């Protein structure tokens, strides 16, 4: 008995739909079986809350008197450079942007206390942000200097636009060398001192819809505490990877490009993040509803942590040198237990992604949907799946000879 999103939305509007989280569906399928679960449940909500580096926001600050052309000039928000390569008063602030005078790793490991991600958090929080800019001036946009406070409520547009978020699975990072290393996966202690991982596991959106059967372009989502949409596949989207029998990839695979109105988002779900010795980024909260259109889709959402596998990768040598070597496979139940065994050694694990916050997102989205405040949308196009052979490649360097 197949359902359509239209039918589900009708039930939602009447307040009759059955909505559960991706954790609750596991027990429901266990007790009642996939067939009954697919009939009884209408929507399964997923969630994730972790650092997502390919994030940023574009803003339209409005015209000054006389007019200024920021495009082609230089501009800074709270000392962090913003991209001024389009139009006159459109700028883009990226999560990993750093102030010009940031000491970086000159005294190792650097603290990276304030960057683009922190500007975005401050902006969403409604704080006043310092905008300083210089422009080269034209006849129609003669002004050459601008220094003003700006606030999100006065901006014409503030749009969160993240080219790569919600990675479908990720590596477990370890350090085989004898020195501490500082990476985007956190501080890694030498000689397999710790193993860091980053995924919401059984709550993770794309791990609950591994073949992108329902999640697509145009899917309405929970983004940063407000409503957003999936607008494209994420950069480095890689559906053509080894997968387990349950369809889930055992290496990083798909990704999403998401977008939403920053003005209706909340700073608790968009947090400026400092990775010691590495840089700044933005921790983003995303939640995606999965409509139970048929049994197959329901089966995918019943996936649990011990069915989800990933690879252990050495970040001291193999990862930086681009060597595709795996030190072994583990599942998320093992990672969540606090210890895994690598090369015969017991290694304590640390998660970068917050499971409790992912649960809060899935639960919040469940409430929004049950209350009829959030209707599901029909995707207008699919994300490239493994059948397309879509994959991602390293840069093929062709040195420029003089």
């Amino acid at each position, binding site marked *: 008995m197949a359902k359509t999103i239209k039918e589900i939305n009708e039930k939602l509007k009447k307040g009759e739909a059955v909505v559960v989280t991706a954790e609750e569906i596991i027990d429901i399928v266990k007790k009642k079986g996939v067939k009954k679960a697919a009939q009884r449940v209408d929507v399964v909500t997923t969630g994730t809350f972790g650092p997502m580096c390919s994030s940023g926001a574009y803003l339209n600050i409005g015209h000054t008197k006389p007019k200024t052309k920021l495009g082609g000039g230089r501009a800074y928000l709270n000392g962090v450079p913003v991209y001024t390569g389009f139009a006159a008063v459109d700028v883009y602030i990226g999560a990993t942007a750093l102030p010009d005078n940031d000491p970086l790793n000159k005294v190792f490991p650097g603290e990276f206390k304030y960057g683009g991600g922190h500007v975005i958090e401050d902006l969403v929080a409604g704080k006043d942000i310092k905008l300083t800019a210089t422009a080269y001036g034209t006849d129609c946009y003669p002004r050459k200097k601008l220094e003003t406070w700006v606030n999100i409520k006065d901006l014409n547009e503030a749009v969160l636009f993240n080219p790569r978020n919600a990675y479908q699975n990720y590596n477990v990072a370890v350090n085989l060398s004898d020195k501490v290393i500082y990476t985007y996966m956190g501080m890694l202690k030498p000689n397999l001192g*710790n193993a860091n991982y980053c995924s919401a596991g059984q709550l993770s959106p794309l791990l609950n819809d591994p073949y992108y059967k329902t999640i697509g372009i145009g899917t309405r989502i929970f983004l940063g505490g407000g409503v957003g949409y999936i607008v494209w596949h994420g950069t480095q989207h890689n559906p053509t990877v080894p997968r387990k029998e349950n369809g889930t990839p055992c290496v990083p695979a798909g990704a999403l490009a998401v977008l939403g109105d920053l003005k209706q988002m909340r700073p608790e779900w968009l947090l400026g993040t*400092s990775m010691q010795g590495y840089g700044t980024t933005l*921790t983003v909260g995303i939640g995606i509803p999965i409509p139970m259109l048929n049994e197959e889709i329901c089966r995918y959402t019943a996936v649990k942590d011990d069915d989800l596998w990933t690879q252990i990768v050495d970040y001291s040598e193999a990862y930086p040198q681009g060597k595709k070597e795996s030190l072994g496979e583990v599942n998320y139940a093992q990672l*969540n237990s606090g210890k895994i065994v690598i090369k015969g050694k017991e290694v*304590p*694990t640390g*998660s970068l992604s917050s499971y*409790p916050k992912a649960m809060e997102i899935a639960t919040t989205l469940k409430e929004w949907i049950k209350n009829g405040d959030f209707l599901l949308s029909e995707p207008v196009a699919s994300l490239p799946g493994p059948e397309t052979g879509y994959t991602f490649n390293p840069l093929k360097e062709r040195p420029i000879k003089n």
Partner: protein
Amino acid sequence: MRKNPYPTPPYIHLLEVVEMISKRIVIHFPYQFADQPIVYKLVKDYDLEFNILKAYITPEKGGLLVLELSGEDKNYEQGIQYLKEAGVKVQPLSQDIIRNDRRCSHCGVCVPICPAGAFMVEPLTRAVHFQDNKCIACGLCVKVCPLRSMEIRF
């Protein structure tokens, strides 16, 4: 009347109940104490064992020691009294590492980093608990926390 098979020893009034305690404290002492063997006195006069967890001198605060002191409870109390009377500021360590609960997202990166095992993941909800009585104030978690939700204050 049955005779008590375990008669009270005749010297009971001479026995005292001795309790051994071990506490972590932070002591601040102004510059003029820099050359005084304060910790040595704690050992010699009050029979306390010490373990220095951290020691430094700052321009604003003078000398600072984070110590783990162990010994009989009476000696410990007297030792602390000596420090206070000498003009040294004493405070328990656990008050100095604070977690900003509103900012902490319970991710878990701190858990394997803490050398004292002060962070623990609750199995069902996966919330991260910070047990400040285990904390030795090393400060590793402060810089490792991606959201900067740990604060160290002396």
